[in-house]
């Protein structure tokens, strides 16, 4: 079995948000197929540094697929070609010897570029601050077993709550929409009894903030679900739309 492959990398280089960017080509030889994609980039960066060239900036942290920091578009696909996988958990055995990989940052008006492959996702934090929570103060909570939650609702909430906030859904969407991200949080909290008191304000405020952050809307392309490393279903967008429609209904009490 071949353990090493050679690749041609075309990586987006951009100094800052205000300067122009372009692709630069790097021939990368002897890539061990057991490496993760980010370890491959580490090796590229070590080589660049040795040559006196500035390394490629890319965001990463936990490298086990849970923190949501990493992400880049590889050959047009956010987080690369393998489904349900973050870039850090994508291993080089998924690529062929001699392949050319085009690597670029998330591209969306809601995510300005910091440098190279790193983008600013603070818009997601602002959306969360607008309503992505249950307003219980420390100390106010009743005994945990007071409210049993049907397993089905708990599981649905958990499915939605798995979102790691990486932004791949936005990068994949032809409209640059954040509706899978927002839908997942609305769906998580609105599915639970604890989330009911703020159900309406939550969906209204989060969608309003999403619009302010220049994210587009959903036109059912489902690219977000395909790109999501946690395979979060578009059904959560439907849940959110249902909650939104109910609040906006003129006959709503």
């Amino acid at each position: 079995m071949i353990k090493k492959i050679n690749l041609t990398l075309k990586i987006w280089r951009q100094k800052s948000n205000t300067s122009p960017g372009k692709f630069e080509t790097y021939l990368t030889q002897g890539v061990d197929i057991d490496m993760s994609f980010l370890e491959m980039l580490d090796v590229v960066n070590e080589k660049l540094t040795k040559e006196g060239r500035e390394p490629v900036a890319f965001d990463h942290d936990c490298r086990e697929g849970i923190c949501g920091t990493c992400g880049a578009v590889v050959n047009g696909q956010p987080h690369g070609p393998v489904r349900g996988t973050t870039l850090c958990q994508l291993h080089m055995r998924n690529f062929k010897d001699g392949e050319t990989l085009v690597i670029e940052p998330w591209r969306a008006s809601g995510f300005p570029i910091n440098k190279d492959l790193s983008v600013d996702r603070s818009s997601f934090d602002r959306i969360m601050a607008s309503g992505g929570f249950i307003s219980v103060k420390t100390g106010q909570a009743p005994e945990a077993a007071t409210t049993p939650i049907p397993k089905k609702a708990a599981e649905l909430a958990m499915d939605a709550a798995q979102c790691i906030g990486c932004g791949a859904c936005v990068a994949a969407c032809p409209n640059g929409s954040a509706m899978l991200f927002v839908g997942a949080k609305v769906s998580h909290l609105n599915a639970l009894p604890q989330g009911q008191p703020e159900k309406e304000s939550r969906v209204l405020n989060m969608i309003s903030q999403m619009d302010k952050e220049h994210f587009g809307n959903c036109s059912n392309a489902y690219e977000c679900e395909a790109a999501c490393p946690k395979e979060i279903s578009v059904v959560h967008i439907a849940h959110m739309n249902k909650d939104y429609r109910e609040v906006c209904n003129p006959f709503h009490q």
Partner: protein
Amino acid sequence: MLEPKIPTGALKDKWTNHKFNEKLVNPANRRKYKIIVVGTGLAGASAAASLGEMGYHVESFCFQDSPRRAHSIAAQGGINAAKNYPNDGDDVRRLFYDTIKGGDFRSRESNVYRLAEVSNSIIDQCVAQGVPFAREYSGYLDNRSFGGAQVSRTFYARGQTGQQLLLGAYQALMKEVGRKNVVIHPRTEMLDLVVIDGVARGIIVRNLITGKIESHAADAVVLGTGGYGNVFYLSTNAKGSNVTAAWRAHKKGAFFANPCYTQIHPTCIPVHGDYQSKLTLMSESLRNDGRVWVPKKAKDPRPAHEIPEEERDYFLERKYPAFGNLVPRDIASRNAKEQCDAGRGVGDTGMAVYLDLKDSINSLGVEVIKERYGNLFDMYAKITGTDPYKTPMMIYPAVHYTMGGLWVDYNLMSNLPGLFVIGEANFSDHGANRLGASALMQGLADGYFVLPYTIANYLAQIKPDAKGILSRPEFKQAEGEVSEKIKKLLSIKGKTTVDEFHRKLGGLLWEKCGMARNEAGLKDALRQIPEIREQFWKDVCVLGSGEDFNQALERAGRVADFLEFGELMCLDALERRESCGGHFREEYQTPEGEALRRDDLFSYVAAWEFKGVGEAPVMHKEELKFEEVHLAQRSYK
């Protein structure tokens, strides 16, 4: 001798009495006090959110691009609490005792008891926040037994409990951000602590995008900046996790306690190549349904499925019949190392043992196993390219958690007035070894239920003047020192990369100050570390500028601190001439090869005072007094 300020009275009444005796800050005055919280993990986020709700002016800092990224997010297994929902005999006292015993009697009784006491409130709080804990079909919360516990006291959310708890705390934090009680500063790294007249009064930070150096003053500074496991280069910590904030506070006078206590986690995916950038933990909950084994014959070349039952050694079950595969982490790790050192390790490198879930898959069915561990199995398959449903997983120990940290008293305040330290960054609750599912418990206990009380007592005794103090020259001076250091790193323009230095330091520490330590090895490390450090400052290569987003520069600063910290870790390990928990000194073991504590000589916390780089630090002792528990040799047989 250090004064831990433990309240008087019976153990079970200490916290209640203490809360009553503490001074309070009037709700109308709270807004006048400014509190800086560095770090947004479970401890930092829960503290910042809670203090914001109470009405203080809170500023929260993290180096990540969002508070939600903090490394608490990667905790998998669960969180302990003494709820006793399964009716199997748990209570606060038992959780307290298990934690003390698990920590090999090297933690402070009063802190641990308080931790057990507030554990139940954490679960209540998290459920109210909407944390989707696992539930039974009845709709009630599910519990499982976890790493070394004989009761089922662990709450979990699939294999991603840390993520769900952190998102709960993050959401609470963002709620306060939305209400303008808390201001967040993401991508902002703390590079120094400002101490004025012996009191912590602020921090110096670098904006990681613009490179700008800024001063922030406050009436109290809280560090929730995590552990130092990345000193080993390879660990299960996130790449960004570092000791910088804690270390710079240490250099400004905060004592560093028990740095030699590091936890090596038994169930990680083995190392596979030189380019390896980090190690991945597989939750030890897998040990609930998995059996650890190696072939009886050394260097057995056969694949696992060809080795018949009678030729397998289930060494944990054999040596520890009562606890079997669920022995505490330090014991499980050391036993795996022993097997591999004896040549019975498996896999390409021989540095792995099997963790076999076959029996559970056969008895419970694939579906149940999938529900319990699906995401862990997927992760394993992605990383290794093998299917754990078909072949047993291979595991090997890796650095995972650090019990040592900045010294704090009962109020979680360091020896520097005004500097509070919470979560993994402090040393307080886990002694020489942490039990599974207790890190999440401690982080949230400190942030939600301990610090908000104890910090009030401190603030009530000072006048708020965060604005006025900012003009003091100490801020400008600290800013200057930080800028100088950055300039120096950029000016060396050497030939060796930051990662090369980091790897070299990490390899040395893993070898000499890892799972087993001895005097000769530690002395050798203490000789080599200053050499590597000197080389670093002569030959490190950091390209680019200090005025923009420069990740190599960030790493260089952190590695420079690890190069100083590593020395203290080895010195602490050398001075502790006993074995306890995660600190195993080869010279001190029982005839059966178990850790041999020396309670008469080492029943103390070693808190180190910084005296200068390359200078011998001074050790201060806090005697550990055990009033409630009877010191015993840990036995899991």
